[in-house]
């Protein structure tokens, strides 16, 4: 049972959605955070993070589940929230008795509305359309934090409710229909003596509706073609069974007739719902319409029929949207309601934080591939969400806050997906080795190996899942796969496998730094201004060659003697580069006043590439803000490490010391923990910093951030995308070669970027960001 009822001992709150066939349970668990140490052991941090677990269980198994929870968790005198659809007193009593908690009942539409909103705001690719033409199948609409509202939710339960949602707190039932799931089951029981939804759906899938339905061709004969009406169009549901002999004929129905009947029934009910939904969406002037409820539940035949009909009625303009986790909407809604209605400030704050799908804890696939129906056996589904404790929002300067960052969509690009999955597969054992080494001094060696093997198994399994069903977690792309790997590592207790490696490299790079800086300073006399700046830029590129995330570079670095910085500079291709906007950048440089740099790897990349480059910009009078990831990913520099390097930098170079003191050089964090970067969900502090400092140029460095993601994204201000191509595959894709250079300056879309913004400086001291952040990092 612990396989799906995970982290029960840490449960602090619990939420229910009690249906009549299955019960959805959501609970919040506090999960202790451990940390890898530089001594290659693990230590407890004393901190916890919040994870929301959602499971769906069969009604009959519910008592066993409650029993298990009451044994392993203490929920006495806490509040359990639930969305009430049908009040089943026996179940309510059972919960109260077994868990000893007090039940708090929430309005069902409030729960559905809030749950959907919560999912749409937090889960990547929560909403999708399903193609009624076979070839495309799923099409995912990615996270859109800005334009969620207003939307219409068509909730298909016993009846149909049509709900308009304008915000977290505004929802209104604008209409409904009595023809929904209840009628579907009632009629199929009366007509076909069949009540099992999955069986009915399977019948409908193969059935031919023309046995019972009157089609246009039945009314018009062959002449229908002359009228421009397609003959297969449905004219009247069940109209052919008008002279049916009650009872005797029904009893004598052949299997194929039953299938045909299921098909007619499905079309009748689904078409009607779709038409109603369209008419309401048209009346309200809202084009985003989500369909959910037990009749939909990711059943291909239902989604196909709904999509077709909704598109048809809208004259081909609109597409029906579905939700990946719609079965948990109500229980998540009860959770969200408990958050925003809580008196506990700390708890309420969770509503503002960023939640992410924990892929490995979710049976994402269950809903996309045929699974055993709930009635057949004990087959729970799970879904987990991790709380990232910062307030997230789209980066202020994104031109389109809803645009997905990914350069290549693996759902559409089979070759790219295959390549990536292969590369990931090949790295697994290497990663396992590094993971074990990172904690090799722990006491429990057996556990260490088991955890490492656990990672290997899980990650392999997930890769297989994505290989077979690219849409298993919505969009698949480089960003998601890399993030998946980090998640699984973390799940098995490997929070930062490159920790010691990064430390070693930082030390090495700090040692080299004075030499690099003095070379730059000396060259000032030999080269003219432009040549000199080009050299500095080349240094930035050379730094980026050092990367434990790139297989080919790892080979070079593993050679005896390793890879030296001067070797790296030499390996950068001569100009003109593959994408070469150096002249443009150089000529525009005087116009920039405030520059934000997103950094990539620790060690040489940051210390020998970014720092000397930033130092030149600072010397030219620019304000420079350097932004690093908040959480570890590969050998990427983390914010914490970046702050830790401030002191040594001050000691090494007097200029840097001066810039740091004056606040001309600032540090901040993105909130992210992936080699790729999703600017739709960054730490709000980053946007704040950006606005406060009127940043007019951003520089994005590294393959993950500038090429795999964000390469095509537009920004309101100018954006310089800098990277050295370190994989053969990407080089081929971009028509370049290994170590080709991308140095691409995109024009900003908006000149008056900060016009009309409140003057942030008046309320804050210009230095408070750096001070505040240093304090934070010491905590």
């Amino acid at each position, binding site marked *: 049972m612990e396989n799906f009822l995970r982290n029960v001992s840490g449960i602090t709150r619990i939420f229910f959605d009690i249906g009549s066939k299955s019960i959805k349970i959501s609970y919040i668990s506090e999960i202790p955070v451990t940390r890898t140490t530089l001594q290659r052991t693990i230590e407890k941090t004393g901190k916890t993070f919040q994870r929301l677990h959602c499971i769906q269980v069969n009604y009959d198994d519910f008592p066993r589940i409650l029993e298990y929870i009451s044994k392993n968790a203490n929920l006495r005198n806490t509040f359990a929230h639930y969305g009430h659809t*049908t009040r089943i007193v026996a179940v309510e009593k059972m919960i109260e008795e077994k868990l000893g908690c007090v039940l708090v009942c929430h309005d069902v539409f409030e729960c559905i509305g809030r749950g959907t909103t919560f999912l749409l705001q937090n889960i990547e690719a929560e909403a999708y359309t399903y193609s009624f033409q076979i070839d495309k199948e799923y099409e995912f609409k990615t996270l859109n934090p800005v334009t969620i509202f207003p939307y219409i939710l068509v909730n298909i339960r016993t009846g149909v409710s049509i709900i308009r949602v304008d915000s977290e707190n505004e929802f209104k039932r604008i209409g409904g229909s009595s023809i929904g799931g209840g009628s579907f089951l009632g009629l199929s029981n009366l007509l076909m003596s069949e009540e099992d939804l999955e069986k009915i759906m399977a019948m409908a899938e193969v059935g031919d509706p023309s046995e019972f339905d009157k089609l246009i061709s039945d009314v018009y004969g062959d002449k229908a073609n002359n009228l421009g009406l397609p003959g297969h169009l449905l004219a009247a549901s069940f109209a052919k069974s008008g002279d049916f002999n009650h009872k005797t004929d029904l009893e004598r129905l052949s299997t194929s007739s039953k299938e045909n009947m299921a098909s007619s029934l499905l079309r009748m009910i689904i078409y009607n719902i779709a038409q109603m939904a369209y008419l309401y969406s048209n009346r309200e002037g809202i084009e985003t319409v989500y369909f959910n409820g037990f009749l939909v539940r990711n059943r291909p035949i239902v989604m196909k029929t709904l999509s077709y009909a909704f598109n048809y009625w809208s004259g081909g303009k609109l597409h029906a949207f579905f939700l990946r986790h719609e079965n948990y909407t109500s229980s998540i809604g009860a959770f969200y309601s408990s958050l925003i209605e809580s008196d506990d400030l700390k708890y309420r704050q969770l509503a503002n934080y960023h939640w992410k799908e924990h892929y490995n804890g979710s049976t994402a696939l269950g809903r996309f591939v045929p699974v055993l129906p709930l009635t057949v056996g004990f087959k729970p589904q799970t879904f987990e969400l991790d709380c990232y404790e910062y307030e997230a929002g789209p980066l202020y300067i994104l031109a389109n806050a809803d645009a997905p960052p990914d350069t290549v969509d693996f759902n559409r690009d089979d070759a790219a997906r295959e390549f990536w999955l292969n590369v990931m597969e090949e790295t697994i054992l290497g990663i396992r080795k590094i993971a074990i080494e990172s904690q090799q001094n722990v006491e429990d060696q057996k556990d260490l190996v088991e955890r490492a093997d656990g990672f290997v198994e899980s990650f392999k399994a997930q890769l297989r899942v994505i290989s077979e069903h690219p849409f298993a977690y919505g969009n698949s792309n480089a960003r998601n796969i890399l993030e998946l790997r980090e998640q699984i590592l973390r799940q098995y207790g490997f929070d930062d496998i490159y920790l010691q490696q990064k430390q070693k490299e930082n030390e090495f790079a700090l040692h080299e730094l004075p030499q690099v800086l003095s070379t730059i300073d000396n060259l000032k006399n030999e080269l003219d201004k432009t040549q000199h700046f080009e050299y500095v830029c080349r240094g930035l590129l050379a730094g980026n060659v050092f990367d434990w995330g790139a297989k080919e570079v790892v080979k070079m670095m593993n050679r005896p003697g390793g890879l030296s910085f001067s070797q790296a500079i030499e390996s950068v291709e001569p100009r003109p580069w593959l994408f070469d906007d150096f002249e443009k950048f150089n000529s525009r440089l005087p116009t920039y006043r405030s520059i934000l740099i997103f950094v990539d790897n620790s060690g040489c990349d940051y210390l020998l590439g970014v720092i000397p480059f930033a130092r030149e910009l600072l010397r030219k009078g620019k304000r420079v803000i350097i932004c690093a990831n908040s959480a570890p990913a590969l050998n990427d520099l983390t914010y914490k490490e970046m702050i830790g390097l401030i002191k040594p930098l001050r000691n090494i170079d007097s200029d840097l010391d001066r810039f740091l003191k004056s606040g001309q050089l600032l540090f901040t964090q993105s909130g992210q923990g992936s080699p790729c970067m999703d600017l739709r969900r960054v730490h709000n502090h980053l946007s704040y910093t950006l606005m406060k400092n009127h940043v007019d140029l951003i520089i994005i460095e590294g393959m993950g951030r500038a090429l795999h993601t964000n390469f095509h994204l537009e920004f309101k201000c100018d954006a310089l995308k800098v990277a050295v191509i370190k994989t053969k595959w990407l080089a081929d894709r971009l028509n370049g070669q290994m170590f080709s250079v991308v140095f691409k300056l995109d024009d900003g879309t908006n000149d008056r970027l900060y016009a009309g913004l409140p003057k942030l400086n008046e309320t804050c001291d210009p230095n408070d960001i750096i001070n505040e952040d240093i304090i934070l990092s010491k905590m």
Partner: protein
Amino acid sequence: MGHTTTSTTVPRRFLRRRPKKEKVPAGIFKTFSSSDEENNKVMDELLLSSKLKRVDSATGSVSNSPRALQPIQIEKVQKTPYVVLPANEKFSKFRTRSRVAVDIGGTLIKVVYSSVCEDEDLPEDATTRIFKYDDGKKILVNFKKFTQMDEFIEFLQNNWLDRTPEDVIHCTGGGSYKFAEIIRKELGVKIQRTDEMRSLIYGSNFLLNNNVDESFTYHHDAIGINKFQYRPIAQDLIYPFLLVNIGTGISILKVDSPDSYERVGGSSMGGGTFMGLGSMLTPAKTFDELLELANRGDHRNVDKLVCDIYGGAYDELNLKADLIAGSLAKCSTYGGATSKNHKAEDIAKSLLLMISNNIGQMAMLYGTRYNLRRIYFGGYFIRQDPITMRTLTFAINFWSKGQTDALFLKHEGYLGAMGSFLDEDGKLEE
């Protein structure tokens, strides 16, 4: 149904003859009585009475019928629906030559034909319009429906005796394509096909214009004849309106003028669905039997009501306890059914409510969409059935929050046939 018009294969249904024959005097049509309508007292009362309260459809002002004090002598009155055509040049040709129009839908065959008559009461607006020709005769148009193609053919063979090979029969409706060959062959007349939508509009237009008491509203809670209110409308205020034609399926038309109209929507859940599901789930053999069953049933035994789900009214959403939350939802074990022995009456009632509620809601949504306050319901599904009219009225009132009334038409089933009758511009088919 692989029947093609080029082949002369006769559909099975056509060959199934009924023993009962209807004999009508020879010569030009005489009006006759039909057993079909005998049960339908409400309809007769409506079609033949002018005692109802009148509420002007545009202004809402109430007037009483001038003839309210003179009770109609029921026994003298014709049982077959008809209207008297105004006496004018356009219609005078029907004094010597009958005209027949037929609307063949997905289920029913509706016929409109002219007849000459001497001893009828005049319509009450006879003071303002002329109905009698100089010889004292009047032209009536009569309305008749059939369910079987062979009965229809037989009726015309026996009654349309002045037909010649040069005569035409006005045809409309989907089935007029399918059965063209049979009609031509059996009756020996030419087919003149009129456009389906245009016929529908022409028919509604003519009836609303010429029959003062064509449209009415239904008030379920009133007693007796007060359940009905005429809704006359001034000729210049008729347009625009929404016409919901409920046949086998449903067509929803937005009508801006006799010549400007658009099919804005429709639904596959119409009369055909009611009859189709009804004949599978109840012993009813005919539409009227099914309606009869429905009138005796109690849908609360098979439908899930709001109170079944929420234990009472759902006040936050303003959902009354007796509203239907899920039609037929109690018929599965999922919805709490313990056995399969549901009463046919209850199922019939539930089906009727399900379909008419849905039509009413759909009509209201289309009405809102095109900003049309007047919604007329036509088509043979309604049959002046109290439950149907009550449900449609309820649905329209409910979804419009009392802003709009459902308007019914006396000759609801014959709009297409009537229009086809009037339409001179049909396409002649050899």
